[in-house]
């Protein structure tokens, strides 16, 4: 193929992609004259170039299309959907001819008479016929789609017209044949070009070279480490920096906006909407988010598939939507953004949601799980069955989707590149898929571990934490226990399923004796899995190289790499390991593997609280707890910095003295460091000295036994153990005799009524508010609060819980606002739920503020706000008077 033709193909493909987008826009915004003339110009250019290159068939089709567009531009024709479909059909024909041209170097034989006649008739003002795909053997629009997709990505991604100009790199360079022909960007003047076209394979080669350079650098650094004061140290450091910069630079050249993977979607959705007789709005957010082109290529197809799914299964027909009280036009939202080293892509629709009942029936019918198993599963777990192979719930197999090759393929493809996919669905409200994929596949940070005498790399992105297995004592941490030979570990009150790497990989070498094994806790989608390894080394930047084809069937490895010392090691794939051990497979039976509490369950148990666990006093004393939200900081205070002032202990902190109180009454003089929980209020702080801070857990805080001694609120079961909950109010008072009467209280403190049914929360709130300078009265129910009103009590503000028996917070607020002495008092809602909807509901009921429980600072802020507001000021004045 000559260079001229190759260039023509690249440009035409780019223009065609642009045309797709522009025509869909034309249909929705027919009055956009600029858009229309843009379309006209593009088609005209294609036609002109065809004539110049001697491509008669292309030229004729383009010419007929141009005629119609020219009439539209002149205002003689209105761009109706039928007319736009016709022009799109002409474009499809052009695409198919161009595709053949690219493959064979010559125009394919074919007949376009009917299409041209239809276009001409339309140009003359006749209504376009319904179907024009009859002629042109085998390459009507329907066939075109197939041809176009079967070709090795004949996409020359052009940015959507509105895309902002990108600096010096033009990352969309992606010619279909990565011919090295570099041509200036067509619309820039010679010499002024800010971008050049570079073949993708040139970039790939560069990346490979840089990867090798990084490896060599690592190797040199390793060598240099063994030799002190070498003359090479300084130049080597410089080399190291330059290599890192180069690596970053080359990575940047490979970055492309994700919009490039999306630019086909408006057309796909538009065609689907016509085919399915639905109205669909496609919203694309974050199209400029960049990711490595290799990743981009790999997610393109799964994304298209998912958008098709949303349009076909997710969204209802206009009639159904109307009946459900939703706007007729359904909406599919694509959203991409960066988070950490990952890119997150959300595909959301506002359709009917995943039908749990139908999925359940289908799971039963296919024997994927038993009825008993299903009964024990949450809706979210049942919905995840759609990721199982061969699973499709579409009642009718439409032309669009529902052929049983579906989400499982998507999931596999995404996992192959180290990504995860999650779904959240609510009946009637829609479904959101969240895909999380690494930004780049080429260089990753990995943890090097050893098992059975061999070293392996585990990608850092999937390592949640490292746990050293102990001997089961309090100090040593929990030990590995076995259920019928299956190892498990108690981790923060859950069972973590364990996999011995040595057994899994059939490594026969015995365990490196002595040291207890370490467990690499790996996050695989929503499940967690522990890998037992013998040793953990360092983390290292590694260049991922694919494994040889003869090893591809070993799914436990995602690649291999060369370490700094030159040795070759395998990269473990936690996804593959989870699959091999049956953990990740649809995750139906492995509900126990969920350690990170999934968002949907926290909604049900609003009282889950972050609790800090610590120890003080005798070794056999029960563990101690305090809600984490009450603690400002955790400190390790060196022994020599603990000073004695009279009878009390204190330390200097930010130029002030911070009183220290040992929880056990004394400080162990043998310890070099003393951990302290720091509580602050405004600019005052106090430290509570403890023996050890052990953990932070999520659990319910329900004090079941009253306090046996001062300083404790009582005993609660936390993380499966009886735990003493400390009374922060008591310790605050001990630290500052006047904590209850700070200088702000000179005018007489504002009086607060605190309505809260839980004894525990009351016990917690009253001292906390008192410490902040309020005078607090507590009421255990709404009725009690109303009784206080009738009795003529006066307050500056009211804080009320929402979830209370008999009369809840909303009802109380409405009752107060309805009239009476307190109708204008500021009301602050205190709730375990803090979503926008809850907030809106609270404000609607008459609350002035809505604060999450345990967020002490937010509560104090809210109180200060409402008290400085008009109602509050009045109330305060009344009180003073």
């Amino acid at each position: 193929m000559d260079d001229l033709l190759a260039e023509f193909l690249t440009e035409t493909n780019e223009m065609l992609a642009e045309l797709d987008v522009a025509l869909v826009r034309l249909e929705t915004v027919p009055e956009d004259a600029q858009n229309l003339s843009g379309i006209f110009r593009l088609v005209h250019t294609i036609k002109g170039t065809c004539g110049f290159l001697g491509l008669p068939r292309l030229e004729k089709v383009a010419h007929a299309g141009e005629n119609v567009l020219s009439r539209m531009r002149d205002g003689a024709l209105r761009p109706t959907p039928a007319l736009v479909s016709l022009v799109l059909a002409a474009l499809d024909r052009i695409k198919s001819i161009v595709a053949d041209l690219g493959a064979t170097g010559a125009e394919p034989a074919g007949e376009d008479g009917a299409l041209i006649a239809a276009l001409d008739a339309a140009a003359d003002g006749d209504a376009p016929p319904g179907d024009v795909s009859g002629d042109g053997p085998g390459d009507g629009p329907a066939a075109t789609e197939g041809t176009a997709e079967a070709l090795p990505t004949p996409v020359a991604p052009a940015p959507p017209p509105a895309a902002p100009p990108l600096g010096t790199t033009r990352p969309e360079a992606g010619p279909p044949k990565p011919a090295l022909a570099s041509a200036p960007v067509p619309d820039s003047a010679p010499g002024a070009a800010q971008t050049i076209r570079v073949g993708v394979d040139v970039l790939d080669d560069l990346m490979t070279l840089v990867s090798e350079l990084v490896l060599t650098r690592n190797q040199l650094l390793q060598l240099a480490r063994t030799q002190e004061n070498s003359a090479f140290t300084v130049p080597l450091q410089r080399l190291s920096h330059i290599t890192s910069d180069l690596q970053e630079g080359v990575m940047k050249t490979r970055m492309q906006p994700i919009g490039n993977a999306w630019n086909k979607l408006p057309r796909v959705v538009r065609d689907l909407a016509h085919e399915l007789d639905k109205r669909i709005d496609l919203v694309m957010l974050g199209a400029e988010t960049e990711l490595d082109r290799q990743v981009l290529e790999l997610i393109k197809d799964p994304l298209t598939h998912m958008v098709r799914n949303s349009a076909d299964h997710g969204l209802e027909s206009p009639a159904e939507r109307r009946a459900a009280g939703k706007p007729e036009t359904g909406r599919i939202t694509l959203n991409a953004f960066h988070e950490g080293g990952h890119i997150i892509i959300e595909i959301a629709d506002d359709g009917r949601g995943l039908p749990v009942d139908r999925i359940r029936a289908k799971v039963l019918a296919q024997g994927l799980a038993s009825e008993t198993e299903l009964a024990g599963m949450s809706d979210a777990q049942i919905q995840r069955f759609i990721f199982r192979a061969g699973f499709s719930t579409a009642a009718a197999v439409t032309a669009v989707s529902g052929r049983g090759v579906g989400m499982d393929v998507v999931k596999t493809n995404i996992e192959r590149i180290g990504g995860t996919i999650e779904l959240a669905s609510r009946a009637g409200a829609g479904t959101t898929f969240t895909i999380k994929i690494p930004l780049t596949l080429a260089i990753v940070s990995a943890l090097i571990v050893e098992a059975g005498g061999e070293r392996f790399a585990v990608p850092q992105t999937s390592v949640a934490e490292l746990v050293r297995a102990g001997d089961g004592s309090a100090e040593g941490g929990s030990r590995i226990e076995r259920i019928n030979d299956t190892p498990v570990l108690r981790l923060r009150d859950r069972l973590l399923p364990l996999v011995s790497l040595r057994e899994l990989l059939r490594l026969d070498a015995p365990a490196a004796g002595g040291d207890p094994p370490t467990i690499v806790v790996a996050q695989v989608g929503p499940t967690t899995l522990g890998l037992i390894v013998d040793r953990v080394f360092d983390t290292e930047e590694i260049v991922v190289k694919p494994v040889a084809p003869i090893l591809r069937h070993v799914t436990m490895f995602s690649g291999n790499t060369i370490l700094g010392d030159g040795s070759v090691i395998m990269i473990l794939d936690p996804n593959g390991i989870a699959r091999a051990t049956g953990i990740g497979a649809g995750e139906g039976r492995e509900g126990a593997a969920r350690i990170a509490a999934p968002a949907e369950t926290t909604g049900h148990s609003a009282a889950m609280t972050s609790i800090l666990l610590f120890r003080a006093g005798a070794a056999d004393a029960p563990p101690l707890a305090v809600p984490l939200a009450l603690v400002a900081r955790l400190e390790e205070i060196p022994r020599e910095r603990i000073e004695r002032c009279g009878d009390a202990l204190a330390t200097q902190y930010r130029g002030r003295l911070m009183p220290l109180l040992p929880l056990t009454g004394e400080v162990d003089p043998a310890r070099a460091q003393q951990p302290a929980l720091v509580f602050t209020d405004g600019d005052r702080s106090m430290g509570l000295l403890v023996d050890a801070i052990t953990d932070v857990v999520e659990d319910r805080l329900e004090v079941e036994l009253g306090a046996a001694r001062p300083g404790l609120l009582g005993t609660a079961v936390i993380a499966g153990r009886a735990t003493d909950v400390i009374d922060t109010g008591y310790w605050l008072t001990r630290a500052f005799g006047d904590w209850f009467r700070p200088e702000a209280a000179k005018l007489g403190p504002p009086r607060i009524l605190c309505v809260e049914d839980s004894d525990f929360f009351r016990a917690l709130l009253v001292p906390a508010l008192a410490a902040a300078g309020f005078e607090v009265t507590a009421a255990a129910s709404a009725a009690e609060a109303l009784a206080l009103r009738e009795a003529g009590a006066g307050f500056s503000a009211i804080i009320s819980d929402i979830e209370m028996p008999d009369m809840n917070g909303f009802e109380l607020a409405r009752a107060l606002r309805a009239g009476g002495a307190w109708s204008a008092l500021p009301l602050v809602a205190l709730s375990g739920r803090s979503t926008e909807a809850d907030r809106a509901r609270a404000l609607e009921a008459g609350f002035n503020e809505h604060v999450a429980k345990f967020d002490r600072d937010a509560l104090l802020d809210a109180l200060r706000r409402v008290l400085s507001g008009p109602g509050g000021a009045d109330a305060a004045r009344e009180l003073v008077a």
Partner: protein
Amino acid sequence: MSTQEPMTDTEQQYVTLTVAGQLCGIPVLGVRDVLADQTIARIPLAPGEVAGSLNLRGRIVTAIDLRRRLDLPPAEPGTRRMSVVTELAGELYALLVDQVAEVMSLPASAFEPCPPTLPAVWAEHSRGVFRLEGRLLVVLDVARLLDLAVAA
């Protein structure tokens, strides 16, 4: 890589090697490198023929144990072995052999197909035999040797 059949009158060059005493040859154009004893990292769960992987100037090369591949008894532990690096479909493979000897130019006239009585595993993986003075040289078919997917 040589795809020519050694049927022409011209002489062809072969890298000769021995495996379990048998003299074998590989067309010299298909050989990228000859390596002395190398550190080979084991690959867990790999097929038995795969000895492991090694680092050849920054490229990862999969090592195939020719003895295992040809159903020969394993080498004595501790013996130093050499390898011949070849390329197939863009991937590098190292054939682990006992000894690599010189490069020989062999006339096409001395070539003939494998005798039909050869064991299947040998017949399958060789292209033919050269009659040399005093001994026979089996020309190995590298592509087939590396086609482990079929063998597995």
